[in-house]
Each structure stands twice: as C-alpha cells, then as structure tokens.
C-alpha cells in the first residue's frame, strides 16, 4: 500500500520534471509566456509529489512497515523514534529520495521567487533544474527505488547503520550538507539558463551569486557539523581525517568560495566571465562527483554505502553535464569577451585573481590526493593510500597564503593602488599582526606554522576592524547616527560586504582553532585498575568502575571516571562502547568535557569483561577545539547577513523621497573611500 503510493509519487515527480524541462527550454527558445508558466507550475507539482513521497516514506519508517524495501533494510522496531525518522538518509535509496525532495524544494522556491519575472532567463533556469530533476527522480524510479515491495513482509529489520544512529548530530549534519550540495545546482541552473538565453550580462550573475551564498552557507555549516559529529562519535579525538568523502564535500566548497570572490571582479570590472561560468559549472560537477564517490562504493570510507549499479549511471550523467556545459560555453564564446583589463598589479582584482588561483590549486591538490589511490590501482594494480600527512603538507602553506590574502584583498582599492595609499591602509593591520607574532613568540611558541597563523590572524582582524571603523565613520558623516546604530547600519545597508567580513572573522577564528588544536594535542593511552589515576596536562582522571546496560537496540558498556582540572572537580565522565547486533565492532561514545580553552576527551578502548576491574582508556587533551564550532557559527551568521533580503530604498520611490527629505540618501554611496569611484558595470557583449 505505502509502497505503491510512494512509487506513484516518485513517478509523478519525474513526469513533472520532464514537463518542466521541455516547457522551460521550449518556452525559453520560443519566448512563450504560457510555456514558461507551465514550467513553473510543474516545479510546484514535482515538489508536491516529492513531499508526498517523503511523507509516505516517513510514515512507513515510523510505522515499521517492513513491506517497503527501504524500511526492511534500515528500520527496526528497537531503534528509537528519532533515529528511525532520520534513517531516511542513512542509506543509499533514502538519501537520494531526500536529495530529490530538497531539489524539488529549491526548484519550487525558484519558481515562487521568479513568478513575476517575464524575462527569458527564468524558463531556461527552470528547464536546467528540470534536467537535474529528471536524473535524480529517474534514479528513484529505476535503480535506487526505495519503495520496492518485499514479499513476504519481514517481522523486523536490522536498523540503520550503527554509526549513523549513535549521535543526535546525525539529524543535523546530513540535512545541512544536502541543503548545501543540492543548493549548488541552482547557480548551475542559472549559468546554463544564461548561456541558453544568450543574455550573459550581469543580471543572472547577481541572482546566481545570492543562491550560491545560501548554498555555500549550508555547505559550510554541513562540513563543520560533520567535523563535530566525527569528533563526538569516532573516538579518535580528531575532527577531520581527509577521508575521501569529507574531501568530496570540501571540493565544491573550495570552488564555490573561489566563485564568491571572482564574481565581484566580474560585477565591478566585467572580467572573468568564462572563468566564473566555469567555476559554477565545475562546482556542480564536483557535487555530482562527490555523490558518485559516496554512493558508488568505489572508495573505502565511513560514508561509503556499498552499492555498485549506480556508479556508471552517475559517471554518465557527470560526462553529459561536463560536455554539455562546456559545449554551451564554447557556443557562446563570442559573448564572453571582457571589456576590462587588469590595470595594476596591486589592486583588489589582482588579489581576487590570486585568491582564485590558490583556491583552484587547493581543489586540484585535494582532488588528486583523493583519487590518486584509484588511479594507481587502475594503472599499476598496486594498492596504496594517501594519508593525512600528504594533505596537511600540501594544504597548510596554500591555506596560509589565503589567510594572508583575506587581510589584503578587502582593503585594496579596485584598479590600482599607490604606494602611499598602501602604507596608509596597511600599517595598522601589519603592526597588529607583528605584535601578535611577538607576543606569542615571547610566550614560548617556536613552531613556524602556528606563529605564521597567529600573525596572519592578527593582520586579518586588523584589516576587518579598520574596514568597520572606516564604514562606521563614513555612515556617521552621512547620517549623524550614534556609533552603535551606524555599526548596525553597515549590516542592513551593505550586508553583502559587511556580512562577508563577518564570514572572514569566523574563518580566522577557525584557522586559529585549527592551528592550536593541530599543534598542541596531547594523548595518552593507559590501562587503569579501579581507583587508579591518570594525569595529563593538568587533568586528573580516576577510574571507578565498568558497567553494562541492555537497551532495546543495543548493548552498552561504559566506564565511570572522575575527572579534575587541577583541583576543580569536573564531575563524572562516562565514555561508552555501544554494541549493535549488526556490527562487528562497537561504536564508541567518547566523553567530552568541553571548555573554551581545552577539551578533555576520554575514549574507552578496552575493559576487563570478566570482573570489570581494569579499563584501558585513551585520554586526549585537545586545546581550542570549541573555537572551530564557534568559528563555524560565525561563518553561518555572516553568510546570513550577506543574503538577508533588505528593502532597498531605491526600489520604493516614496520611501526614497522621504529619506532624501531627511538628508539621508537612497542608494548606499561611498562607505570606504575606495568605494567613491562609481561602479563600472560591464558593458560588453550584445544587449538583447
């Protein structure tokens, strides 16, 4: 019953996507408003269908309807309701269903937002979204159908993969990541739509950028959430292992970040048109590639669901998208000439170009390290792995250059900087950076990378603070508002720019957290008898007892430890090992005692199964890990500020008049002095 309903819903979504594609593309080429309208309505229809499919699947999961194939594979009567509900994304077919639902949601949102637009871009964009939709809904109808009927109906199922039902964060990290991943298909659709419509002026780019920031923010939060999950569950005291699938989520993040910077060069100077298109398309291809890595089972990874049939289909789609997109770029190459050129070697655009080169280099190095084992195995049939040392060694210096550029780019003027201006702009931040290095050095730190990181961090904070100071004083000159209000004005009036600085600040906080936790982590593994104590970095840990507990879905063994930091009692710590009937290995739940400065992280490694007299515990003191999560949150807030829709006074004549009467101005004028040069909008290419 549910099985039939769900399958019907998925087929309906597929039909909707087919109609959307055909109506969108034909409507765009013929410039036919009726067909554009059909495309828009099909987006709503597909979303309604996918919504129904999701509801059916959740009903089947929560109602333990084991006649539905997916439920028979990931459900069990013993699994708690929360984990049953989120097991929607704990295996291949369900995760593609979830993916499809989000895709349909984005398409419908796009259709709502652009319902009044009469341009030719909208139907083309919907058509491109439809192509992506056909692929994913097609997977659901064909090889990844989660709604298959199981006869006879099993009494019970095995429950979700134990790793994925062991921590509440599983309810947060995957949805954020999917919102990011799938969201990246919207800017892609805009790029394809713009190429098809032939109108490659800046209009489409502004919309694409906005969607990109939203997807980027979700992706960033998803990645940080994944690191947090890994820290809280995997029990090795780390948060990032350069696991192939972590890399798969990181690769599109890198290219999307590159785009968010280079897009400004195109908006201001009309340069880099082909480059920006390529970045958007490349980002989308990398999301497909990442999904391919995760879903095809070709790599060994915590995330790899072992299913083979879907791999070749994905590769085919990736090839289709790649060839199709770049053929479109070649077709439109006559409209992609840049009217502007690089005027000065030291200018904001050159800083952005350098930033982009490094982002692309990072993408390349991470991609190479990820697929290198596959390539070597295919060519020489030797099995190798590329471990974290490679990534650390290659990634760190490049990332540090980016950190430095973060302090340079925003403060440089467009076009050309004079030596005198450079001196005025940078002496405060540079002094701050140098002072940071000096202080940290005097505190006894001699390692190069952390010192450089701290120095650059001080420098970037200096630049950001200067930018805010200049912004506030400019606003006060204009509106005579008190400083705190003028400060808030920066966010509401130029959220894009100042939100961007908040993102930068968050990244700097994360960089400092990474440098500290990566350099000063302490680890000890000791077997303790009852009552025995272990000391590590000012912490004392005493082993009390081992206990066991039966739970419906698992069997838990825990150790009770008392912990002190100096003389201060931190309370009872209970690292656990969870034994699931379907897993050969226990899944750890480390005990993490977190503070801003340091985390005490205890993992139960082994224990005396006979009498519970001794336990082997791994104690890790991890400094500044909390800063990573805080930095991630700041990044999210900054991105939110950057895309928050504000009423633009210039679009509301009556308000503009009122503001003008008050001596305020409708359009945001110069904020920093370098903004006083009027924006040069691209004027090249034929106008339709």
């Amino acid at each position, binding site marked *: 019953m549910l099985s039939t309903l769900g399958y019907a819903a998925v087929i309906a979504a597929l039909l909707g996507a087919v109609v959307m594609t055909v109506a969108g593309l034909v409507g765009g080429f013929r410039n036919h408003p009726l067909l554009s309208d059909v495309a828009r309505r099909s987006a709503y229809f597909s979303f309604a269908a996918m919504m129904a499919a999701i509801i059916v699947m959740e009903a089947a999961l929560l109602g333990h309807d084991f006649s539905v194939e997916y439920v028979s594979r990931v459900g069990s009567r013993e699994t708690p309701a929360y984990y049953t509900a989120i097991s929607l994304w704990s295996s291949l077919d369900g995760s593609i269903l979830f993916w499809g639902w989000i895709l349909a949601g984005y398409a419908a949102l796009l259709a709502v937002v652009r319902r009044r637009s009469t341009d030719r871009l909208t139907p083309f964009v919907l058509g491109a979204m439809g192509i992506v939709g056909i692929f994913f809904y097609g997977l659901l109808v064909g090889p990844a159908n989660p709604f298959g009927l199981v006869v006879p109906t099993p009494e019970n199922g095995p429950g979700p993969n134990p790793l994925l039902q062991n921590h509440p964060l599983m309810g947060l990290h995957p949805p954020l990541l999917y919102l990011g991943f799938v969201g990246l298909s919207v800017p892609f659709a805009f790029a394809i739509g713009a190429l098809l419509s032939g109108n490659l002026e800046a209009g489409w780019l502004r919309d694409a950028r906005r969607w990109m920031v939203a997807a980027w923010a979700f992706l960033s939060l998803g990645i940080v959430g994944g690191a947090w999950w890994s820290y809280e569950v995997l029990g090795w005291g780390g948060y990032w292992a350069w696991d192939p699938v972590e890399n798969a989520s990181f690769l599109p993040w890198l290219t999307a970040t590159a785009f968010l910077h280079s897009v400004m060069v195109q908006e201001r100077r009309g340069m880099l048109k082909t480059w920006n298109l390529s970045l958007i398309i490349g980002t989308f291809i990398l999301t497909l590639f990442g999904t391919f890595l995760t879903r095809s089972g070709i790599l060994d990874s915590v995330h790899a669901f072992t299913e083979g049939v879907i791999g070749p289909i994905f590769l085919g789609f990736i090839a289709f998208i790649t060839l199709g997109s770049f053929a479109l770029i070649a077709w439109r190459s006559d409209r992609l000439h840049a009217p502007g050129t690089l005027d000065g070697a030291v200018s904001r655009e050159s800083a952005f170009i350098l930033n982009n080169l490094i982002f692309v280099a990072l993408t390349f190095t991470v991609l190479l390290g990820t697929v290198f084992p596959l390539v070597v195995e295919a060519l020489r049939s030797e099995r190798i792995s590329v471990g974290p040392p490679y990534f650390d060694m290659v990634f760190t210096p490049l990332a540090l250059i980016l950190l430095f550029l973060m302090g340079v780019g925003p403060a440089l003027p467009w076009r050309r900087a004079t030596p005198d201006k450079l001196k005025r702009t940078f002496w405060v931040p540079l002094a701050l950076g140098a002072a940071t290095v000096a202080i940290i050095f005097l505190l006894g730190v001699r390692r190069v990378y952390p010192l450089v990181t701290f120095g650059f961090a001080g420098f970037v904070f200096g630049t950001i603070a200067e930018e805010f100071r200049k912004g506030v004083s400019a606003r006060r000159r204009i509106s005579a508002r008190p400083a705190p209000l003028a400060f808030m004005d920066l966010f509401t009036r130029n959220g894009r720019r100042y939100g961007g600085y908040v993102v930068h600040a968050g990244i700097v906080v994360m960089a400092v957290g990474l440098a500290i936790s990566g350099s000063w982590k302490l680890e000890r593994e000791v077997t303790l008898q009852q009552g025995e104590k272990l000391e590590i970095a000012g912490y004392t840990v005493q082993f009390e007892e081992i206990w066991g507990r039966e739970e419906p879905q698992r069997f838990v063994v825990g150790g009770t430890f008392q912990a002190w930091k100096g003389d201060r009692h931190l309370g009872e710590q209970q690292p656990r*090992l969870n034994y699931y009937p379907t897993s050969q290995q226990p899944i750890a739940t480390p005990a993490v005692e977190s503070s801003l400065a340091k985390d005490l992280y205890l993992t139960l490694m082994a224990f005396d*199964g006979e009498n519970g007299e001794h336990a082997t515990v791994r104690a890790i003191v991890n400094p500044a890990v909390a800063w990573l999560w805080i930095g991630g949150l700041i990044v999210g807030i900054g991105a939110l500020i950057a895309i928050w829709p504000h009423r633009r006074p210039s679009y509301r004549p009556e308000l503009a008049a009122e503001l003008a009467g008050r001596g305020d101005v409708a359009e945001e004028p110069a904020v920093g002095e370098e903004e006083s040069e009027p924006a040069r909008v691209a004027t090249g290419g034929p106008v339709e």
Partner: protein
Amino acid sequence: MNRRKMWIGLGLVAIVGAVVLLVAGGLRENVVYFLTPTELEAKGAEVYGAPLRLGGQVKPESVDWNAESGRLLFVITDGETELPVESSGAPPAMFSEGMGVVVEGSYREDGVFRSHNVMVKHSNEYRPPEEGEHPKEIYRSLVDDEAGR
C-alpha cells in the same frame, strides 16, 4: 602592456610550478603502500622504515597483550608468510584471533613490523554476526554482574 603580460605570465608559471612541486613532493613522501606479508617479505630491505599498511589474519594463539605496558604482540599471516607484529596501544575492542586485520606502521631491519594502529578489517556491509560472535555472548558475564543496576 606586453611587459605586464609577461610578468603576469611569469607569476602564473611560478605559482603553478610551486603547486606542482608541492604536490609531487607530498605524494612521494606520503603514499602508503598496502601489502600482504608475502609481498612485504619479497620487498624486504627495500621498504625498511617506509610507512606501510599490512593486511592479513591474526594467527591463532599468537596474541600476547600486556595491559600494563600497553604492548600488543601477535603474528600476522596470509596463509603463506608469517610476520611478527608489535603494536603500541590496546587492541581494538573486537580484536580476536583468526580475524582479518590491517596494521599501519613500518617494517624494521629486525624483521618485526612495528605498528601504531591496528584496524579490524571489516567490510562496510553490516552483516549479522555469527554464533559466538555476538557481543552479548562475549560480554554476558558483565551483564550478569550488573544485573539489578
């Protein structure tokens, strides 16, 4: 104009060159080969000290785990060749004789493989455990001790 283009070109070449060098060096130093005991023995002195992953089975009745010193000794075998492994740190919780393992570490001149990480080899397929493998069976005594808790 041409002069500037030349400089931009040179800068590009320098950046790309530096990245390529960095990547090539990184890969040369950090690729970890996965070998079986037989393959390792064949390579012999060639791989002394190099980071390796060694895969095989734990030879029955070869395990010696000393909780006090935190040292684990066992013999790894692929059916043809046997190699002694010395590892620091507790064995993974489900570690047992006869099971497949992957050990990370390096091979030394004395013919012992020194490992810093023992991984229980498991497929990502979560199959139901077999009789006697069931965790509840293994830790039964503990539950009984804690009955009434």
